[in-house]
């Protein structure tokens, strides 16, 4: 792919893209954007800029932390279902089914309002070192989003682990590799490679799930927009700006994963 990606190819693709009707559409879109900038109310924007930056930062760190932790959890979840003993495979399967079969919003509320309302009744919990964290909202958001990512990606990893050719694993064993080495050097890398194309889509889903944390009082970029709506009664402008912010973040995620995928060799063995 990279060999054929010459400058001439790129120019040819660019000239294909710049068709006359597209220029017309771009002009229309630009006119709409200018009209939105001129005729809609943006006077609230400077007052909330600091809060918006803080909100975007929260959204990004929640996305990154829960995606990384979720993937780390997805590997054992998928592996347990493929190669684990039954007492590990069943719980893993049920974990994935339950999380994937219920709305994330409900899981968040179950954790935050449900468990969160039960915790203070127990002095063991109130006196524990974890209590300062349990009183805040973000740990619940992180746990719920991590579980969600782990369950969806665990399902993918299950297929990826099952898809690695048996002969490869047998060859590893025949070379005298221990089971652990076979897993580390052959099974996991190939499974991770075949799951890689799903990661971008899964991470975009995760980004789109992050605004739900606003419903449990975590201040992300979505909740900043809601605050603007409540304070100033301006409805559309913050929501439109929010949509643009999320589109940009989606674009960044897709571009990052495209780079990552280009770096990883696509053919193994």
């Amino acid at each position: 792919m990279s060999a054929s990606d010459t400058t001439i190819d790129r120019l040819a693709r660019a000239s294909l893209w710049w068709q006359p009707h597209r220029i017309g559409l771009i002009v229309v879109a630009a006119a709409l954007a200018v009209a939105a900038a001129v005729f809609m109310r943006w006077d609230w924007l400077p007052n909330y800029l600091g809060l918006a930056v803080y909100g975007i930062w929260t959204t990004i760190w929640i996305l990154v932390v829960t995606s990384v932790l979720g993937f780390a959890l997805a590997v054992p979840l998928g592996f347990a279902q493929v190669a684990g003993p039954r007492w590990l495979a069943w719980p893993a399967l049920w974990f994935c089914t339950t999380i994937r079969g219920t709305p994330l919003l409900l899981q968040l509320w179950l954790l935050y309002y449900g468990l969160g309302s039960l915790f203070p009744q127990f002095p063991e919990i109130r006196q524990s070192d974890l209590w300062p964290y349990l009183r805040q909202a973000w740990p619940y958001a992180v746990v719920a989003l991590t579980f969600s990512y782990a369950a969806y990606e665990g399902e993918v990893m299950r297929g990826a682990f099952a898809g690695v050719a048996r002969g490869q694993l047998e060859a590893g064993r025949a070379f005298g590799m221990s089971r652990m080495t076979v897993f580390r050097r052959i099974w996991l890398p190939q499974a991770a490679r075949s799951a890689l194309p799903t990661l971008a889509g899964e991470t975009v889903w995760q980004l789109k799930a992050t605004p739900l944390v606003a419903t449990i009082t975590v201040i992300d970029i979505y909740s900043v927009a809601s605050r603007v709506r409540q304070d100033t009664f301006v409805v559309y402008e913050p929501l439109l700006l929010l949509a643009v912010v999320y589109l940009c973040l989606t674009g960044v995620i897709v571009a990052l994963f495209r780079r990552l995928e280009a770096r990883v060799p696509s053919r193994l063995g």
Partner: protein
Amino acid sequence: MLEALLDALRSQLVLLFMPAEFVVGVAQFLVTLWSFLVAVSNAFAAGLKSAPALLAPEPPGWGGNLLRGLMNSVYIAVGAYALGLAIGTAGAYGKLYGGPILRDLLEVYTTIVRGVPELILILLLYYAGGDLINRLLALLGQSPVDINGLVAGIAVLGIVQGAYSTEVLRGAILAIPQGQIEAARAFGMPPLLMMRRVTLPAMLPFAIPGLANLWLIATKDTALLAVVGSFSELTLETRQAAGATKAYFTFYLAAGGLYLALSLVSNVLIARIEAWSRRGMPAIAGGH
């Protein structure tokens, strides 16, 4: 006993040149974690003790409300899914056979819907749709109306579903062996007849896995309408019941069970539909 254990650890660790405080901290953390887990399971048991009374189907209990909410969620999901399929079929045909402008506009539609969180789309479409209809009514000299929550929910979720359906159906149509469509054309079939007799049945086996996934997403996305608070579907009913009784844990767990049951029943039906749509096709090679 714990003190003795910690003392033993401390004396051992000095020999190992490790910071004793660190290891003691870890041990204390583990003890904390353990008592935490015990407390959580106690909370679990305490929460479930009053569950039968709270979840009774008759009015002192809230079970009836939850079941009504589940029915409403299913209505919205079915409606949104059907609307999404209609939009998706039109969108897929437009993307494959439409002119350049239509194709680009559809691309913008699917890109925006797939790149922006559902929650924001729902709020935008909900407010903007209501506003638009009332302005239209005002132009016609009518008094403004309150938009039915059910209709609004179906319309909003249907537009979101339509974007995903478009992509699924487009891919499925492209997966049909080209010769089948060419044969239909060669027989002089008019486009609608060809769609009904060849394209739609032939693409079905390719589309079913994606469409099944979309149905599960539709059932779960109905929960997002609780944030708008316009229509009493399951999550909103649950929130009201939980708020009234303060038994948050019980009710959210019960609602989770209902959603899970809906998903599991759907999975069974989906497996049957998939088997039916693949009738006459060679079986997929299982495993290696």
